[in-house]
């Protein structure tokens, strides 16, 4: 059985149990073991990078060390975690000078970054370990006629030179995996552009304007929902619609759904087990469309 060290990060366990639940349940169903590691910390995402880039590299390297010690590759759900860890992993594998500096600090924890493990995103595990064919065969409830606006979030794709996840201008992986569930992945303008989430707390007005643009474009393209991978994107677009309502006096009622939730539903997992009440914008429309209405 394939095993991965599951790196949950900070937001998912603390705020979005529906994401964690669906992710764990789907993987269990698809035969991938997720191992929780002791001692993990914050991945050191952009807010920490903004304060001190070198510290953030070291914190990320520390977390990778834990996986190296457990002899496991890392899988992340949050694209922010994916970016922090994968960038650190790939930079430190290549840049000897930086690695020496980082290991100098890690040595006081008795750790050493060796660069022997990989950092992967959940989607990569689906694509490479589970495989598209097996995934398609495992779908018991195809999401037929569901028009999904795929929104991977910036940090799954960029910086592409270090993440090497997909073509940064023409990504296909996320769309392919949505289509594997029977849904349709629709094109919408500015699909690859940011949700503005990282400006929340500093420039909420700008963040909201960007989020609104995103939702408008998806709605314009006739999407039934926006599928997300990043807890920040989710928050920005889901909670954001509440704020848009109060600020712009506009209502879009665009369900925001983590991909793992769509996956779990299509694998036949009972919606009741998925803590769907954590959605601010209710997703009943979507469940209706795929014939899975909650009682």
């Amino acid at each position: 059985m394939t095993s991965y060290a599951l790196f949950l990060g900070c937001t998912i366990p603390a705020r979005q149990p529906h994401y964690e639940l669906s992710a764990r349940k789907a993987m269990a169903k698809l035969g991938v073991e997720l191992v929780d590691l002791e001692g993990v910390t914050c991945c050191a995402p952009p807010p920490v990078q903004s304060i001190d880039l070198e510290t953030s590299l070291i914190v990320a390297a520390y977390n990778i060390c834990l996986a190296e010690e457990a002899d496991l590759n890392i899988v992340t759900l949050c694209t922010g975690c994916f970016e922090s860890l994968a960038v650190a992993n790939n930079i430190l594998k290549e840049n000897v000078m930086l690695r020496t500096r980082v290991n100098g600090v890690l040595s006081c924890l008795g750790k050493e970054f060796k660069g022997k493990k990989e950092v992967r995103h959940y989607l990569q595990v689906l694509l490479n370990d589970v495989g598209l064919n097996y995934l398609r065969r495992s779908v018991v409830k195809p999401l037929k006629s569901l028009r999904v606006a795929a929104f991977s979030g910036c940090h799954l794709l960029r910086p592409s030179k270090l993440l090497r996840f997909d073509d940064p201008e023409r990504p296909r992986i996320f769309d392919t995996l949505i289509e594997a569930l029977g849904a349709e992945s629709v094109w919408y303008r500015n699909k690859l552009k940011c949700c503005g989430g990282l400006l929340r707390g500093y420039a909420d007005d700008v963040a909201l304007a960007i989020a609104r643009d995103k939702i408008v474009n998806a709605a314009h393209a006739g999407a039934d929902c926006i599928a997300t991978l990043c807890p920040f994107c989710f928050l920005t677009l889901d909670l954001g619609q509440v704020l848009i309502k109060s600020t712009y006096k506009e209502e879009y009622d665009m369900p925001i759904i983590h991909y793992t939730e769509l996956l779990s539903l299509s694998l036949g997992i009972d919606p009741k087990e998925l803590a769907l009440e954590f959605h601010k914008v209710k997703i009943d429309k979507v469940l209706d469309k795929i014939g899975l209405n909650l009682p």
Partner: protein
Amino acid sequence: MEAAKVGVFIADCGGQISKVLDIEAITNFVKNIDGVAFVARNSEFWRGQGLQIIVEAVKNKKINRVVVAESIPKISELAITKAVEEAGLNPYLVEVLDLKNHCAWPHRDAPLEATEKAKALLLAAIEKAKLLEPIEKAEFPAVKSVLVIGGGIAGMQAAEDLAEMDFQVYLVEREPFLGGLAAMAGHFFPTDDCAVCIQSPDLKTISRTSRKCVYRSGFSEIPNLNILTNSRVVKLEGAPGNYKVTVERKPRYVNEKKCVACDLCASVCPVEVPDEYNAKLKTRKAIYINKPLIYPPVYVIDEEACKFHDCARCVEVCPAKAIELDQKPEKVTLNVGSIIVATGFKEYDPSVIKEYHYGEYPDVITHLELARMLDAFGPTNGVIIKPSDKKPAKRIVFIQCVGSRDRRWNPYCSSICCMISLKHAIMIKSAYPDADVTICYIDMRTAGRGYEKYYERARELGVKFVKGRPSEIVHDPSANTLIVEVEDELLRRLLELEADLVVLATAMVPSEDSKELAGILGLELDEDGFFKEYNAKLRPTETKRRGIFICGGATFPKDVPTTSIHSHSAALKAAKFLLHGRIVKDLKVAFVNEEYCSNCQICPVTCPYGAITLVPKENGHFVARVSALICEGCGICVGTCPVGAIELTHLRQNQIQTQIRALLSINGTSNPLILAISCSECGHTAVDSSGMSMMRYPANVRVLKVPCAGMVQVQHILEALKAGAQGVMIVGCKPDGCHYEVGSGKAQKKVEMAKMLLKAYGIEPERLEMFHLIYVEGDRFAEAARIMTENLKKLGPLRL
């Protein structure tokens, strides 16, 4: 060989030298050196009565080696060797040194030390002279014929020049028609004339105007010019002056002598394929001709598209019975003396720049595609349309620097795209004054006579300019419109420009065959894949391969005026190379002592000229061999050979060693002795110029001249220290400006290596330094010598 009888001639330069040096003491010293048969003093020895003294001594057989202490660098050496040769002595039995600029002037404050140094310099020269051996001349045949590869503007111009100078010329073109990229371009800037226009040949039957359309210029009728279309070079053998080139000719399937270009064949041909010549904007038949025609005015069959005998309808209708479906490829071997590469450049495929969606959105096109549209003979008969719906395009946005000046794709500026955009914008605005034409640019580059006026004209005609590189082209499907997202930097505002047609000014990149051809010809490509010239400043159309020249866009994207200049230059160089039908060369070259050459195969890769080849032996191993014709005599191979199997005829290993010992055998200075090994190019001229401009440096610095710093061996450095040097300076050209390309760089690497070994030997690595100097940096040589001396003093004596 007769024992060495050295004549030593000491000039005092009208007293300039004797003012500082004790010439009397020096003369007495020289007289007592073993082997010195004759000593003379004069004001100067390189001309007039002084030179006569040398000539007499040689003629009277008093001496068979000549050592002259002169004061005029280089010129004196040339004059003296010439006179000596005329007097019957091999000119390479002469050694000239410069006591004024290398000793008297720089050390004028310390005459005693300078006098001792002068003795050392003379002793070294005399000891070297005793070991000198005659060097003979060799003659190599040079066939008076030239191969020109590439039938575009550059190749045609060069071919025409050479053919008219009575060289036998073979012009090889890969495509079935001549003309190259230029023929597709329609119009040219800055003359606004046709692309298919060239300098008119000097044919009696043709009126001699400044320019002519290629097809009516009589180009193909120039005597001595042989045009081979549909052909490519596949193999090169032989040596400069006498190459054997194998050319593979694809069959045309149409007999060139019979075809009357009546078009009946094309009218019945059932196969339609995208027309490359028209940038695939329309189709053509499998049997076709390019219009307007260039040369030959004959149809050709596209063998990949044609169904041949399964169809053969063209054969039936051809009134001239010209179609021969059974033609086979053939190989032709050409014997040529030199080769000109004129393979041009091509448009970069911008589909990799995904933000611009080229290849995905039909209305995003390149300049070449636009040029075809603007051509009245082209696919749209000169009308600009949106390829997606064939409707006229009114709003046109040009994007500059697409794939060029872009570190991700091609880091260089393609240099002609700004002008092409201006040309096309002007053409559009002139034809359709109501068209909305915008050029998005990073920097407009219009360097060239009349080019800025072009820019001005575009503004006058109402072309809009936006300073800013668009980040993305978005397609709005509802209106079938393109949206160009760009920041107008001068307004600091983000714009969304709506366009019917977006034209990408793409990078110009090397032709696809460049790499393969470079491999066949043994030429170097630069980091961008263009053919690399011998020297950008001085030998722009020559290559390191003697006898092979390059011109036009093959070396870098060029406009036509520059290409013309370049082609004429290459033609001139090729002509000069073959003019006498033979190449005469002094054998100042490297040679391999095969008894010791041990198959390590290192030297061939270190030779910048490819002069060293590996010759197979019976045991499957190889022995290195130097081509005397190609060798430039730099000695980089000597500096590399780990077994000492390679030597230079003009500077044997024992001559170096004996000079090292002699230069260091006389001290006479309170300062630590330094041996400066300098290359005879920039390095030595820097030493010369420091003396000529009377810079001061101490007399403990003794200069040993070698052809190139790359010849220096680590052993030489150790030997110098062993012989008493307290420090060693290596003086070479700038690494990028090395006269032998790689020598200075190799010297630097050996110096680094030697420094590391010195450290292991317990010797301060600072005792060895490399300096990269040029002629105008004489002051830096003097300064380096002073600093080195001071540093060595601080380090204290080296006791071996």
